[in-house]
C-alpha cells in the first residue's frame, strides 16, 4: 500500500513539474508582471487594460532596442507567498529581465525583498506603503504610485485650510490604514498645532459594523473626520453616515475615494463636499492625458479607471528604462531608472535617486452629486515632486545598501 503511495506521490510531483518546462528563447524582451487579478478584479481589470494598451503602442512603434516587448503576466491570488512563487517562476523559468506590478502593500514588500535577493529590477506599480521606499527600501525596487506620505501631504495641505479644530479618524485596521492615519496626523499637526484628535475608529478590513462605528464617531463630536476606508467598507460607512447625519456640518477628508473604482459604486449615495484624492477622468486638462483617453476609449469602449493609468504608466516606465539602459543587465537597468524621464498620462515623471519613488502625482478635489452619480469638482493636479518625503527622512529610515 505504501509503495503505491510513494509511487502516486512521485507521479503527481512529476506531472506537476513536467508542466514547468522552461520557455524557449525568442527575439523579444520579456517583462514579468504580477498582480492580484483574482483577488481584486475591480482594480486589476482596468489595470491590465492599461498595460496592454501601452504594450500595443510600444510594439507598434517598433518595440525597444530593436526587439518587441513581451509581458508575461501572473496572478498571485492576493497572497504574498503565491506572489513569490510567481516571481520565482518568472525569473527562473520564463527569463524575464525585470518584474513589475503588485497591488497590496504586503505583496509589494514580499516581491521587493525577493527582487533584492535575486538582484533583479522590480517596478512596484500600486502598493502604497511607505516601507517599500523607506524603512524596507532596497536598490532594486522602484515605486510608481504616490505613496501614503505623499497622499497624506496633499490632503493635509487642504485640511489645514479648514476651520475645523477637532478631528476624528476612521481607518481599516491593518498597516495601510494605520500608517495613513499616522502620517496624516503628523503632517496636519505640524501645520496646525491647535488641532485636537478627539476620536478614532479601527474597523477590521471588510467587516465594518457601520452603524456602531458611525455612532461612536458622532459621540466624539468632531468638527471634521478623516476617512481611510475604501471598497465595500466605504459603501457601508457612507450609507450609514448619510442616514444618521454623521456628515452634516462636518468636513470630511478621505483617501482614495475620488478614484472611479471607489466612487462609481456609491451612485446616488455619494456624499457631497468630501475632500478626496482621485482621478476625474473626464475633466483632466493635462495635455498628455487627452491622447491616452482617446486611445483607451477607442480600444475598450469604456472609460479608464485609475488602475488603467497605473498599468499604462508602469509599462511605459519599463520600456523607457530598457531604452535608456540599452541593455537587459539588472545593474544597468537600475542605474538607468534613477532620474529617468517617463511620459505618462499625467505628464512627465521621474524616479528620485534617493528612494526610487516616482514623482507621479494625484488629483485632489471635492466630491459632488450630478445626475445620480458621483463626480469630482474643484480638482487640481498635485505634482508628486512637491510632496515627497524630505531627504533627511529618507536617509534616516532607509537601510544602508
Amino acid at each position, binding site marked *: 500500500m505504501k509503495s503505491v503511495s510513494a509511487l502516486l506521490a512521485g507521479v503527481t510531483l512529476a506531472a506537476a513539474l513536467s508542466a514547468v518546462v522552461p520557455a524557449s528563447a525568442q527575439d523579444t524582451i520579456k517583462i514579468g508582471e504580477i498582480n492580484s487579478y483574482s483577488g481584486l478584479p475591480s482594480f486589476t481589470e482596468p489595470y491590465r487594460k492599461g498595460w496592454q494598451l501601452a504594450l500595443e503602442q510600444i510594439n507598434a512603434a517598433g518595440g525597444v532596442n530593436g526587439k518587441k516587448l513581451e509581458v508575461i503576466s501572473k*496572478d498571485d491570488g492576493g497572497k504574498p507567498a503565491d506572489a513569490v512563487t510567481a516571481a*520565482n517562476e518568472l525569473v527562473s523559468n520564463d527569463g524575464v529581465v525585470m518584474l513589475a506590478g503588485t497591488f497590496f502593500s504586503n505583496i509589494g514588500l514580499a516581491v521587493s525583498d525577493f527582487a533584492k535577493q535575486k538582484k533583479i529590477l522590480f517596478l512596484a506599480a500600486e502598493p502604497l506603503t511607505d516601507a517599500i521606499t523607506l524603512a524596507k527600501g532596497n536598490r532594486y525596487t522602484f515605486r510608481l504610485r504616490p505613496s501614503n506620505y505623499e497622499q497624506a501631504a496633499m490632503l493635509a495641505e487642504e485640511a489645514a485650510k479648514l476651520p475645523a479644530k477637532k478631528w476624528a479618524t476612521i481607518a481599516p485596521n491593518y498597516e495601510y490604514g494605520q500608517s495613513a492615519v499616522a502620517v496624516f496626523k503628523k503632517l496636519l499637526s505640524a501645520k496646525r498645532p491647535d488641532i485636537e484628535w478627539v476620536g478614532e475608529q*479601527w474597523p477590521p478590513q471588510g467587516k465594518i459594523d457601520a452603524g456602531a462605528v458611525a455612532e461612536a464617531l458622532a459621540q466624539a463630536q468632531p468638527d471634521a473626520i478623516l476617512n481611510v476606508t475604501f471598497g465595500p467598507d466605504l459603501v457601508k460607512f457612507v450609507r450609514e453616515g448619510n442616514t444618521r447625519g454623521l456628515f452634516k456640518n462636518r468636513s470630511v477628508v478621505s483617501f482614495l475615494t475620488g478614484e472611479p473604482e471607489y466612487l462609481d459604486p456609491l*451612485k446616488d449615495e455619494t456624499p457631497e463636499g468630501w475632500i478626496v484624492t482621485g482621478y476625474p477622468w473626464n475633466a483632466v486638462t493635462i495635455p498628455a492625458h487627452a491622447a491616452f483617453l482617446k486611445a483607451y476609449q477607442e480600444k475598450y469602449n469604456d472609460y479608464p479607471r485609475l488602475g488603467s493609468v497605473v498599468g499604462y504608466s508602469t509599462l511605459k516606465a519599463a520600456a523607457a528604462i530598457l531604452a535608456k539602459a540599452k541593455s537587459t543587465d539588472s545593474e544597468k537597468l537600475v542605474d538607468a531608472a534613477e532620474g529617468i524621464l517617463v511620459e505618462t498620462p499625467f505628464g512627465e515623471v521621474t524616479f528620485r535617486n534617493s528612494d526610487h519613488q516616482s514623482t507621479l502625482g494625484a488629483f485632489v478635489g471635492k466630491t459632488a452629486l450630478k445626475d445620480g452619480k458621483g463626480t469630482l469638482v474643484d480638482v487640481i493636479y498635485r505634482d508628486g515632486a512637491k510632496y515627497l518625503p524630505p531627504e533627511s527622512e529618507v536617509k534616516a529610515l532607509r537601510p544602508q545598501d
Partner: protein
Amino acid sequence: MTFLFNQFVTGLASASSLFLAACGLSIIFGVTRIVNFSHGAFYMLGAYVAVTVTEYLSSSFGFWSGIVFASLFVAAIGALVEMTLLRRIYAAHELLQLLLTFGVTLVVEDLVVLIWGPADLLGRRAPGLNGAFDLFGQPFPTYDLLLIALGPLTLICVELLLRRTRWGVLVRAATQDREMVAALGVNQQWLFTGVFTLGIFLAAFGAALELPREAASHTMDLQIITEVLVVVVIGGLGNVLGTFLAAVIVSELNAFGILVLPKISIILVFLVMALVLVVRPWGLLGRTEAMTRAASGLQIVRWRPLLSRERLLVTGGIVAAALLPLVAGDYALTVASEVLIFMLFAASLHLLVGAGGLVSFGHAAYFGLGAYGAALTLKQLGLPMAAGLVTGPLLGFAGALLFGWFCVRLSGVYFAMLTLAFAQIVWSIAFQWTEVTGGDNGLIGIWPSPWAATAAHFYWLTLALVAAGIALLRVILFSPFGYALRALRDSELRAEAIGLSRHRIQWFAFAIAGAFAALAGALYAFLKGSVFPDDLGIPLSIDGLAMVLLGGVGTVAGGVVGAALYKSLSIWVISHTDYSKLVLGLLIVILVSVFPQGVLGAFSHWRTRHAAGERP
C-alpha cells in the same frame, strides 16, 4: 446616557442581521451535522441575485417581492446542489462534506465575478424605510427598526416550525438520532433536502435584507462565514434560540467594545467563542452531541507498517527524489520544496484527524508559529538558519501544548471550533503586534544560510527533514501510543474502560502534531524568504484539511499523497489561469464525488477488490 441607549439599539440591528445570516446554518448544522462551508457563498449569491432582481427587474417585481423571490431562487439552487452533490457523500466521513462545500464555495466565488463583473453592486434603499427618525436627539435609520423586528420574528417562526409541525418533530428527531429516524421509515433524504433548502433560504433572505445597508461584493462570503460559524457554535449547535442569543451578545459587545478599545473588533468574536467554549463546552444552550453510529466496517481499516519490500520501494523513491536537481531547474526545485513542506504539514494533520479522529480547523496556527519562530530567531536574535529550524518547532510545540490542553476537553465540532478560535487569536496577535511581527506587512529578508541558499541545496535540506519527519510520524503511529490514540478514536468508551486516559493521550498527540507542523512552517519561512499572518490563517488550515481528505483520511499515507496532489494542482492552476478558484473548486468537487474515500483510499479499495476477485 441616551447615547448608550442609541448604541444599544444599533447593536440590536446588527445582531438581527447576523442572526438572520446564521440561523440557517444552525439548522443545517444541527440536523445534518454538515459543516456547510458554502453557507457564505449562498449568502453572497443571495445578495447578488437580490440586487439584480430589485435593480434591473424592478418593473416586474416590487422591492419586497423581489427580495422574497431572490431568496426562493437561491434556495432552489441550494436544493439542487444538495441533491446532486451532497447526497452522494452522506455515508462517507463527515468531514468530506466540509471539503465538498469548500469546493462549491470556490466555484461560486469565481462564478459571481464572471456573471456580475468585478465591481461592487449597491442596491437601492428600501422604499418607505429610507429615512431616519429621531431617537433621543440622534437620527436613527428607520430600516434598522425593521431589522430589529425581523430578527425575533424569524426566531419565533422557526421555533414554531420546529416545535408545532410534524416536519419540525422529524427534524428534531433527526438531530438527536439520525439512524433511528431512518429506521422508523421516515424518508431521510427528503428530510435533509428540506432542511438544507430552508437553511439556504434563510441565508439568502438575510443577505437580501442587508442590501439597503451594504453593497454586494465578491468578498462577502469569506467575511460572513467565519462570523456565522462562530455565532452558531457559541449558541450551541442546532439551537436557534442559542444562535439568537449569541448574535445579540457578540453584536452588543462589539458596539460597546469599540467605544473603549476601537481595535477590538478584529478579535472579539473569537475571544468570546474561546471563553464560552472553555466554560460551557457545548455552547450556551447546546446539549451533548448525539452519538452517531458509524457505519460498521467503514472505519475498521487495517493499518499496518511497511513490509520490507515496500520499505525498499520507498527508499528508492526518496533516492529518486534526491536526484531531481540533476534534471530540474531552479523553479521546479522550489516548487518541489514547497510540495514537500506541505506533505509534512498534511502528515502532521493526519496524525490528528486520521489517527486521532480529532478534526482541527486551526492547524495552520502551529505552522505559522513555526514560521514566525524561525523568522524572529533570524531577525531579533540574529542566529543562523539552523537555530531557526530548531526554535520554530519548539514554539509550535509550546503553542500546541498550551492550546491543546483546552481543546481536547471538547470533542467533535466544538473541538474544531475551539481550535479555530485559538488559531484566530494567534493570527490577531501576529496581525496587531506590529513592533515584533511586522503586522500584516510581515517579516521579510528571511533567507537561508549561504550553505543552503541555492535551490538545489535547500531542496536537499527540505527533503532530508521532511522524510525524517514523516518517518518519525509513522513510527509514532505504529507505536503503543499510536495504537492507544486509534483506540480512543474508534471507541472512546472501551478505551477508557481499559484505562487509557483520553485527555492525556489526545493532548500529547495534539502537541506532537503541532511540533511537526511548526517544522514545516519553519522551512516554509526560509523557502519564501518572508512570513505573513496569512501563514496562520484559516484558508491554510482548510487547505490542510483538504489535503488530508483528498488523499484519504482512512489511510495511513493519505496526508502525504493528498498534499502532493493538491499542492501541485494549485500551483499549476494559479500559474496558468486567472480563474484558479473556479478550476480548483471544480476539481475538488469532482474528486470528492468520484473518490469519497480519498484518492489513496479509492486506490487501495480497488486493489483489495481486484485481489479478492482473483482468488478462486
